[in-house]
């Protein structure tokens, strides 16, 4: 018996693909903004502000939009979150600011904070002077590793305080997962690079591309040559399924595939399976499922070992997957991937259930799903090797194996700070920005003390 492993490119026409990957939440029109901004009540001690990891003053920026001061609204946002433009597009607002908006209570529909935020940032008046200035030079020089959201926000904040910053970035482009990971339809038109251009306009930030920590430079070297170091290196590795068949061609890491997709100039050239199985339940699982569909996969099934309510992906994201034609199978634990060195044909699962104590147990009930491609999206893992092997000169890790930090985002090494996905947290862009901001302020405090003590 011979099998066809149906993986090929050009499943859809170029025009269909470019349509599929267009902006998922297009900008609000002026009229929509009028209506949406009017709904904001200018709450006192507004819950939405507290729910935003970067604490953007939401009522204030919405009021500014409403009074016709879009430029002021944009400044309000960017002063709290320099990546406010990409956050407006990628934040799962339904689990952050919009979840707690008081308008949910009787109207079941929050103020559209994310989309208003996008409108405001898009309307920053670029004929006006750059909205941020640098304090007088402090003569201090900070090394940042990783030009992702955490590194960039940290760099901007430090530059504002008058410090000099050099970013060491392993990739040929900056942006981190904003450039290489986030679903394409959330950040269209090369938004990430445009945004970074804006971030760097502050001055005093130099990015050294294709300079990897652990490969081209060591932490010890960075510490020696700089007054402080900030690590914003993301996670770097993914979890494995650890089941038979995982090594066959056709079994792919979702993050790596998305990275390829994000950099592809002709999306139709990307090989896509006809029948796709996605293992996982978070944002990455949803993204790979939706993007596979948009590339022309016929059947896309997201399989999760627990029930739907336990999924990491929000209801909004689950709905997105469903609207795009992906189906969910819950309570099914990966058992085996059937295939050969030429490809795969099916994947089997043990059905699971909760026992009386609420513990997940595996049953003998086995299901099988025919497939050409399996995407693993069961979470990323921090890769600590770039930090070096010498436990003396390497920052301590926490129980989950990520870099351990205190409340000031300071690691076990006095002059080394860390934030974003490489430390424990929610693994969201907006949180990485918040870590970067706060770490920068802590670094600034530490260096200011040194300056005052004449060091």
């Amino acid at each position, binding site marked *: 018996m011979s099998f066809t492993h149906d993986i090929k490119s050009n499943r859809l026409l170029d025009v269909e693909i470019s349509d599929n990957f267009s902006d998922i939440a297009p900008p609000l029109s*002026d009229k929509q903004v*009028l209506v949406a901004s009017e709904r904001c009540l200018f709450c006192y001690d507004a819950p939405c502000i507290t729910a935003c990891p970067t604490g953007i003053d939401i009522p204030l920026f919405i009021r*500014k939009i409403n009074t016709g*001061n879009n430029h002021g609204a944009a400044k*309000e946002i960017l002063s709290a979150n320099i990546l406010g433009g990409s956050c407006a597009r990628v934040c799962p607002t339904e689990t952050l600011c919009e979840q707690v908006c008081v308008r949910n209570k009787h109207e079941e529909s929050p103020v559209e904070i994310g989309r208003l935020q996008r409108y405001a940032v898009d309307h920053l008046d670029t004929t006006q002077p750059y909205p941020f200035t640098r304090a007088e030079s402090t003569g201090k020089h900070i090394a940042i590793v990783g030009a992702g959201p955490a590194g960039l926000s940290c760099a901007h904040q430090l530059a504002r305080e008058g410090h000099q910053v050099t970013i060491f970035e392993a990739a040929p482009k900056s942006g981190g997962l904003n450039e290489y990971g986030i679903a394409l339809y959330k950040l269209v038109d090369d938004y990430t690079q445009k945004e970074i251009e804006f971030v760097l306009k502050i001055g005093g930030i130099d990015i050294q591309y294709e300079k990897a920590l652990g490969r081209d430079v060591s932490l010890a070297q960075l510490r020696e040559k700089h007054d402080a170091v900030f690590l914003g290196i993301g996670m770097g590795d993914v979890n494995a399924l650890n089941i038979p068949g995982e090594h066959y061609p056709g079994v792919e890491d979702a993050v790596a595939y998305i990275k390829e997709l994000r950099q592809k100039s002709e999306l139709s050239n990307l090989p896509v399976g006809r029948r796709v199985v996605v293992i996982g339940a978070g944002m990455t699982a949803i993204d790979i499922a939706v993007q596979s569909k948009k590339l022309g996969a016929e059947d896309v099934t997201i399989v999760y070992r627990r029930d739907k309510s336990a999924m990491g992906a929000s209801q909004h994201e689950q709905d997105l997957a469903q609207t795009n034609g992906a189906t969910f199978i819950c309570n099914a634990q990966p058992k085996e991937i059937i295939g050969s060195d030429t490809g795969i044909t099916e994947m089997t699962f043990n059905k699971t259930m909760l026992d009386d104590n609420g513990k997940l147990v595996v049953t003998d009930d086995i299901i099988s799903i025919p497939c050409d491609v399996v995407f693993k999206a069961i979470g990323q893992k921090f890769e600590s090797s770039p930090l070096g092997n010498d436990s003396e000169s390497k920052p301590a890790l926490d129980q989950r194996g990520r870099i351990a930090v205190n409340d000031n985002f300071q690691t076990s090494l006095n002059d080394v700070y860390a934030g974003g996905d490489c430390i424990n947290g929610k693994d969201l862009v907006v949180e990485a920005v918040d870590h970067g901001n706060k770490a920068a302020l802590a670094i600034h405090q530490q260096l200011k003390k040194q300056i005052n003590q004449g060091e």
Partner: protein
Amino acid sequence: MANLACEFIGIKSINPFWLASAPPTDKAYNVVRAFEAGWGGVVWKTLGEDPAPINVSSRYGAHYGQNRQVLGFNNIELITDRPLQVNLDEITQVKKDWPDRVIIVSLMVPCEEESWKNILPKVEATGADGIELNFGCPHGMPERGMGAAVGQVPEYIEMVTRWCKQYCSLPVIVKLTPNITDVRLPAAAAMRGGADAVSLINTINSITSVNLDTMSPEPSVDGKGTHGGYCGSAVKPIALSMVSEIARDPETANMPISGIGGISNWRDAAEFITLGATNVQVCTAAMLYGFKIIDDLCDGLSDWMDTKGYKNINDFSRKAIPNTTDWKHLNMNYKRIAHIDQDICIGCGRCFAACEDTSHQSILQTGDLGKRKYTIIDEECVGCNLCEITCPEPNAIKMVDIDTGKPHLSWLHHPENPYREEK
């Protein structure tokens, strides 16, 4: 960056935004919160002689728009209901703690020289920057011969102002009531009395609504209501006009003005300044949204000034005055007509109903139900703006200038004017 710092009758303020004399400035607690939020100054809630008046319960009413938006607001409160000395002590302390912020003390005492002579030195001793004479309160106080009762009689205004200039050295601002036919008369009286400035408007006589079950006007006090002072967004047009009247009249044109009435955002403030105000005062907007709105007031005004290249408030103050004129000077040969942008129009037909039923039958309705199309009949349109105003879609209807090729011709010189003047 535009500079918002400004000077009003010799009083320096970090920005042109003061809180008007009212509950937001009732006591030290509120005023300190306002200063912390960034307000440039306050006019302290009106002080009077002891014993302080007593307020009733249920005090405010509202005129709502759709969706509970407060368009207009009214109140039946009196002047401060706290003892004079308590207020004076607090004013002294707050001024000491906030030297860069302005405190003006609002006053209302009986129309007798002794009363003024008595209170003025006490106010001056607080270190306040100036006084404002409340000749405007339309309820309760007039019944006691104060407030609007004085403000409606120019001779009294002149007399009391003169006493104030005589018995104290602080700058004197006379706050005018709008409950009068021609606001220029009290303004001129204030000037004759030696006032340094006028501020306007105080609140307007009003009944916001009637409860149709209990048959009581709102706000209702034990089943009965009374007329109260109207303010908030809805009074802005009235206040703007009154401010401009004083600024345009040759007799009062040089009188500094503190603009008050319905100012809710930076745009309103800018408009008052272009029509003659040097600074502005805000009450209702703060009462509805809290002191934090100062952030938008300052930031919005300064950003707008930046885009226009205005470096400070003086650069645009009174800029709209030369363009504010009498009807008789308007150009009768100027023509504008409406134009409907079909891409933006949603086909609701509101413009048609308005023009067909109540204006000039200048809109053509074509197409079947569901595919209705509305177009302007250019020759019929008189350019009244009604359709543009009723249209729910911003920018669907634009008023466009038509070049008539005719020279400027005002009614003053119009051939059909039997009383025309020759040029």
